[in-house]
């Protein structure tokens, strides 16, 4: 090559190659592997103490009962990857569940009761995305405002009553598909699809660029405002899908916001390896982290420890994960 003539000869030849499979796996999915290992260890240990832990009944509770959190965490992970955050998702799911139940009781076809809230979720999140991207208000401020509006509005309108008399065909989360509880199927399918899309689509890649360095993304021709609005709309769609699973699991819907739901969802993303600073993480991680919490919560009961310890354990996990992330970043700086 003509160019090599003038290059100083003292320099070693370049390692122009693709990295090996294993090193790539650990470099890219380190946190996911750690969480998966934690789940496996937890199951083995708790089952040795109390074999009923691994019964089909308990597993269904763990996986199906928390699938809606995992689905909401998919959208949340995308938002956090772009360097933003959303604290309104818990309130939003409460509002959407109430809309869904009201429509079902009013006699609308069940698919309307299921999917109309998805559209509402996309619209509400879209508005928030516009405020973040174009009005340049920090996402924590926009979504805090939205949280108050949605939460206050919901209680004012419904007075916190329960919606009952839901038609049985509305209760999607109680169905089984191919012999598997439907929430588990949805959680797995949505996680895999979202993962592949984040990993292999040009759009997904651009989200990592926007979160990793918005200035550079802009200077490379990525329209960062449009990407941020889009990611909020998609997050709204996942919140809507999570609502379907949440609202259809019981015979009644309580018209209030599930306490701390937004924090649980954010925590799942963070412990799953999504950097709170943006730019890295996968939805496989957030789904695994959701399963890990659910399993820890259940395990505490099976080994006779007060379930209140769950919060404390999760708190420790958050700090440990963020600390590890900061140390990784410092190493690379």
């Amino acid at each position, binding site marked *: 090559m003509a*160019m090599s003539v003038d290059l100083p000869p003292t320099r070693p030849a370049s390692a122009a190659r693709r990295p090996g499979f294993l090193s790539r796996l650990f470099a890219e999915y380190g946190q996911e592997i750690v969480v998966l290992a934690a789940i496996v260890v937890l199951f083995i240990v708790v089952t040795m103490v109390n074999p009923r832990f691994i019964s089909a009944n308990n597993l269904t509770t763990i996986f199906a009962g928390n699938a809606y959190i995992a689905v909401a965490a998919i959208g949340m992970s995308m938002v956090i990857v772009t360097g933003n955050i959303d604290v309104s998702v818990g309130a939003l799911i409460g509002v959407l569940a109430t809309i869904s139940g009201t429509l079902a009781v009013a006699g609308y076809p069940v698919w309307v009761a299921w999917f109309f809230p998805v559209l509402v979720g996309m619209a509400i999140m879209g508005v928030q995305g516009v405020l973040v991207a174009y009005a340049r208000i920090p996402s924590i401020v926009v979504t805090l405002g939205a949280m108050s509006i949605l939460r206050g509005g919901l209680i004012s309108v419904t007075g916190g009553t329960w919606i009952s008399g839901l038609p049985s065909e509305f209760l999607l989360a109680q169905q089984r598909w191919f012999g598997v509880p439907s929430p588990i199927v949805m959680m797995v399918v949505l996680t895999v699809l979202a993962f592949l899309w984040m990993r292999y*689509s040009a759009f997904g890649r651009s989200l990592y*660029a926007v979160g990793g360095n918005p200035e550079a993304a802009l200077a490379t021709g990525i329209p960062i405002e449009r990407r941020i609005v889009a990611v909020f709309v998609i997050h709204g769609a996942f919140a809507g899908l999570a609502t379907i699973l949440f609202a259809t699991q019981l015979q009644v819907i309580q018209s209030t916001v599930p306490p701390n739901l937004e924090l649980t969802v954010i925590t799942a993303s963070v412990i799953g390896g999504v950097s709170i600073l943006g730019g890295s993480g996968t939805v496989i991680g957030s789904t695994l982290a959701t399963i890990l919490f659910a399993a820890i919560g259940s395990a505490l009961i099976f080994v006779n420890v007060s379930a209140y310890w769950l919060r404390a354990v999760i708190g420790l996990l958050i700090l440990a994960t963020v600390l590890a992330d900061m140390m990784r970043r410092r190493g690379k700086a």
Partner: protein
Amino acid sequence: MTAPFVTMTGMSKSFVGVKVLKDVDFDVRPGEVHALLGENGAGKSTLIKMLSGLYTPDAGTITVNGEAMKFSSTRDATAAGIATVYQELLLFPELTVAENVFLGHYPRTAGGWIDWAEVRARTRDLLDQLDTFDLDVDTKVLALSVAQRQRVEIAKALSKNAKILIMDEPTASLVEADVQRLMQVVRQLRERGVGIVYVSHRMPEIFALADRVTVLRDGAHVGTRAIGEVDERELVSMMVGRPIDSLFPKTEAAIGETVLEVRNLNHGRHVRDISFSLRRGEILGIAGLVGSGRTELALTLFGMTPATSGEIVMEGRPVRITSPRQARDLGIAYVPEDRGLQGLVKPMAIRKNVSMATIERVSSGIFIKPAAEARRAVDAVKRLSIRCRDIGQPVGELSGGNQQKVVIAKWLETSPKVLILDEPTRGVDVGAKAEIHTIMGELVKQGVAVIMISSELPEVLGMSDRVLVMSGGAITGEIDRADATPERVGAAMTAHRVQANGTGEAA
């Protein structure tokens, strides 16, 4: 001849296995200005950070007044009489001048309270010693100019009874009048017996101020000379390690038809009525002081700050450029001044950074083809000799020069017709610098038109076919390679007063 106040012997330091300083000796005598010279990455800042206590050496000794010292913090160095005026001034904008000067060592009253009267009086006294009578000690620092803040920093150093003052690129962001004033302050300090370590790239200042000069290259000590024994040519060749004519490997490329034409372009105060044309195979250098509007012009051409009036004609077609995306699609590429800020996503792999501007070329439908993407990245790494572990390595782990080559690689993927390079070799070591110049030569041979913005006059003169000089947001000179001398370019760089009278009223 007086004995040195500070002597550093055999200083060595490694970072993550890379030796950045190898067995360097350095000393400073009371009442002298000792200039420290070297290219970016030569080890100057590492050396002065050891002297100021920020870094601990791996090997080597520091003696102050004949006594061996171990600095484990800047506090230790300050106590030994060594103070630093940093390039990025470390003052608290919300505090007053007096509060800043004595921050951390406020004089106390008998009762243990801060003696504010004393703080203000002593600050006044220190500023007067620096001939800075016009600065009120009760002004908040945020209201001061860069030059004024610098004098506050110097007063702060003197308040700690500094015997040695380290000045890291003190004139880098000053305008000419302030440079003269600063040099006066430096001479006064020298007369009072303060020893000054003066780090600067600017040869005229070094010859005007320094008593001795030490040159570092690639972390090693090249030589220490009395200023009377050397000339500029010799210093430069000591810095780069070879005769200076081979510094800029200018290759002859055939200059073709006009590809970009700009007429009466305006944006804000910094891009005023700019007109020029650019041809295939040409390197157009843009010279000018910091703040002359060079970068602003590039940002306007690239659509980051779209032009408010004027015309851009690309290959004969008038175009309006309002976003970087549009500029990119027209065949304009911009390698930014600050690669960390605007060029790279540092935690991301080389592979992903290289494909960032051209993701659709390695995709089919909505999905990226990883093999195609990897192939292009491997190819770029080979062609530009990017030194890395593999293409999966995060770019943040690479050296400055290799990071810069990744940014260039990213833009070469777009097959640009016009490549704008803003300070392409800033913060890049000597070897990589030559490689980047070679790459530029290769590109113009292939018919790319290059606009190179540089603060380094030798680089502008060495690489450009034509030089545009900017000052005060306007073009103050257009000089062909054959006529481009440091004097002519330098004169045009400071010609803004004339220009400002002419166009300033209208703007």
